[in-house]
């Protein structure tokens, strides 16, 4: 536990120094609030862009606040995922490439402590960034559209966080297997994209798929309920994440060499 805390603190300090603690939340806030604002001004934007004949009536139904939040989460699911994976790709590989990792592994530190401290620290940063973005969006949405009950917002936030729990585990796993940052990011994105693709192609067999988390959050926001499917997807996502982390620890012990 002591090692874990020391390593966790180091990770926090590093993320403060390199600015990750600042730029990531800001970017998530910008991406998030863009959604309600563009939705709100959509009629004007279309009018400007569209060269519509005089007197044409633009009739776009105004979305509900819930719909805006769903659209935001969908943005987070694509751009946000890409951003997060890129923000994580150097987490282990850089220390390996420079060799600084040697100073950690020559001390009585277990691989498990090393990987899990990185995991928890990075996940913490990403979750804070995500929550900041989402809360900001919620505030705007309430203001511009209609009030979305905080319990629904919180529920969708919680369920969606599981996606981040998974993507962090996936990126760290590739981070232990591969050395090259580009490869790590590429493989992680590929893996997550394949998961989504398979889920759309074979919905019957993929009910457990973490990609369904977005459907679950929509359900929570629109219908205000979470059922057994939410539980299934949540549990499977958590299980997969733990599995990937375990695999990362195993492969680190097996593959990672510090010599020369």
């Amino acid at each position, binding site marked *: 536990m*002591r090692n874990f805390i020391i390593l966790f603190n180091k990770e926090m300090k*590093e993320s403060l120094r390199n600015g990750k603690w600042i730029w990531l939340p800001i970017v998530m806030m910008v991406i998030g609030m863009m959604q309600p604002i563009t939705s709100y001004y959509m009629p004007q934007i279309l009018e400007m862009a569209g060269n519509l004949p005089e007197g044409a009536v633009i009739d776009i139904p105004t979305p509900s606040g819930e719909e805006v939040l769903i659209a935001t989460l969908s943005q987070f699911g694509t751009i946000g995922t890409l951003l997060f994976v890129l923000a994580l790709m150097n987490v282990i590989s850089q220390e390996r490439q*420079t060799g600084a990792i040697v100073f950690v*592994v*020559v001390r*009585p530190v277990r691989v498990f402590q090393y990987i899990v401290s990185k995991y928890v620290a990075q996940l913490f940063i990403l979750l804070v960034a995500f929550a900041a973005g989402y809360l900001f969006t919620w505030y705007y949405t309430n203001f511009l559209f209609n009030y979305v009950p905080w319990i629904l917002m919180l529920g969708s936030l919680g369920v969606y966080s599981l996606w981040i729990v998974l993507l962090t585990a996936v990126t760290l796993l590739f981070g232990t297997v591969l050395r090259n940052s580009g490869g790590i990011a590429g493989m992680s994105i590929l893996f997550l994209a394949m998961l989504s693709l398979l889920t759309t192609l074979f919905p019957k067999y993929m009910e457990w798929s973490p990609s369904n988390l977005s459907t679950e959050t929509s359900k929570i926001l629109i219908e205000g309920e979470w059922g057994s499917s939410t539980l299934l997807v949540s549990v499977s996502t958590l299980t997969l994440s733990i599995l990937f982390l375990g695999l990362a620890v195993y492969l680190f012990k097996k593959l990672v060499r510090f010599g020369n």
Partner: protein
Amino acid sequence: MLVTVQYVSKQFKKHTAVHPISFSIGKGRCIALLGPNGAGKTTTLQMLAGLLKPTSGTIEFVGNKQIDNRSQIGFLPQHPTFFNWMTAQEFLQFAGELSHVPKKQLAIRLKETLAFVRLEDVRNKKIGGFSGGMKQRLGLAQALLHEPELLILDEPVSALDPTGRRDVLQLLDQLKSNMTILFSTHILHDAEQVCEDILMLKDGRLKWSGTLEGLKKEYNSLAIKLQTKEPINGALDQLDFMEEIEYVDSFTVKVRLKSLANSNQLVQTLIENKRTLAHFELLQDSLEDAFMKVMER
């Protein structure tokens, strides 16, 4: 005895970096691991430090079987790279905490160690801006911060200028009294300055292990330089205690005898053959010669 190494070898794919070697490290000794480039020094040290798993053999810390012995070791890699965003002080704090130095003691050790390696003035500077020599000294500091039983240093002076070299060797000399030191170098002179024991490695094979004194003794076969007024002309050719004879010119020879005791007989033979002795000199083999001989063995 602190560490016993038995039949330890390391294979990288097809290439054998270290053939099975056995040696032991006495507590409180200072041992130099000597060998040319590619000899397997780094590989050996990394196995000792627990960074590489030996392909075969055992490394045993006496009284500490099977247990993680990393807490007893301080290690300086050949090319240390640090977390550039940390300051020297932060890095040592981090390293000390990971080595489980108690908080109060760590504060004291931090001061001592920074002073010892003379980095107090730059302790709050980012490591990213350090020179190679400063990094080497910081590397040394992190290795000895937690007062390990065994200090393993991989070429601690190779990257340094002559002054830096002397400084670090002096530091090692001071540390000798507190801990067991094992360091690698390819320069015999470095070893001679601080160490009493040496291990010689070449092509992954252990060529010699023992004390420097022992090496001197064993390889100090005596050479004698003789000069006569008359040409020597084979006067010495038939002696059975002669190991080697080398004519410098017709009046001068260098001979090597099986034993020093035979030198009287040598002179006697000359006189019996009517040669006038003009010069007689015992040639002491330098350690360098012994070293070369062992390496070429």
